[in-house]
């Protein structure tokens, strides 16, 4: 009989211990969430935001590279020579010294004398392209005029001749035709 009476308090004691353990586990879980998992989650969220940001940046850069590549393919500027040729045609910066060198070089090459030259710079000729207006007068033999004009037209830097005035005179003694001519031209640059 006494053995049966003793078993009841033992079971109740065990339940109490388990309940206490349960409470401790709950407190531990809440504390673990508050002080460990929550900061960990916050770190993860920041990391995830960084990943998203880098992913977007990579996407933007890819688009930029694609546009460069399609520009190269569509505009026929894939090779270094083509790029240099284009940049010589319309250089970055006014490069007035280059224009003077070009005029002198073309004149000399065709036995034409450069008599005078005037310049004027203006921006926004076409989108980001500015223009350097050149008014120059020359003198030489009539027979050299066309070759000289071809030299101007084929120059690596683009010269767009907007007007031309030619005066022809004959040197009777030598039977040579001389020309005095003036050209208004535009040379272009990227600002």
């Amino acid at each position, binding site marked *: 009989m006494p053995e049966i009476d003793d078993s009841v308090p033992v*079971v109740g004691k065990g*339940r109490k211990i388990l309940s206490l353990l349960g409470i401790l*586990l709950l407190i531990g879980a809440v504390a673990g969430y508050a002080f460990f*998992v929550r900061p960990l989650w916050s770190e*993860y969220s920041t990391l995830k935001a960084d*990943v998203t940001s880098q992913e977007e940046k990579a996407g933007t850069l890819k688009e930029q*590279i694609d546009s460069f590549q399609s520009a190269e393919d569509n505009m026929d500027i894939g090779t270094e020579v083509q*790029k240099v040729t284009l940049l010589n045609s319309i250089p970055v910066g006014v490069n007035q010294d280059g224009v003077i060198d070009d005029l002198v070089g073309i004149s000399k090459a065709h036995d034409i004398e450069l008599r005078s030259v005037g310049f004027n710079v203006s921006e926004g000729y076409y989108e980001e392209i500015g223009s350097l207006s050149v008014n120059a007068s020359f003198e030489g033999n009539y027979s050299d005029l066309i070759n000289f004009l071809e030299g101007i037209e084929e120059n690596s830097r683009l010269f767009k001749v907007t007007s031309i005035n030619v005066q022809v005179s004959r040197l009777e003694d030598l039977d040579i035709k001389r020309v005095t001519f003036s050209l208004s031209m535009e040379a272009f640059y990227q600002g």
Partner: protein
Amino acid sequence: MNKVPFLFVLGVVGALILGGFTGYVYYSQGVAEQDLKKYDLQVANLENEVVQFEGENLGAAVSAKQALNVLKSDSIIWSEVIENILNATPKHTKTRIPLVEYVSYSGSQNNSVNINARTIPGSNTPFGDVAGLIRSFEKSSYFADPFVPSISTGVSDEGNLVLVFSFNVLINNE
């Protein structure tokens, strides 16, 4: 039958949920770190590629190409114009000497050319030479609307009749 206390069950479930969630966060964090490394490397490579393209002045070359297409579209090749003027000038059938002599000419971007000319001193048909010039330019596909507004007479140093006239013509762009 002994029942397990509710609080104990709740505590164990809470601990399991916390453990599971912690594991999930650790796993996700590991994956995110790997992704971040991957994208960092990708971004660095792409940035290098962009710098390489920009270093090759591709942007400036593209602008130049676009501008050239526009700027050249209405350019007049003046060497060609002068060559065509000389080719269109009527010449003597035997001597091949031009029947008129150009004193001056001017041209501008609006496709018009203004020429001051005179006939060859001593020509038997000076007015006919002027008419021949107009005819010759009319026949040329390179020019259009030749027009002589006035003709005046003069005398050369040798005392021969010379016609002095101006002559307007348009460059045919069609």
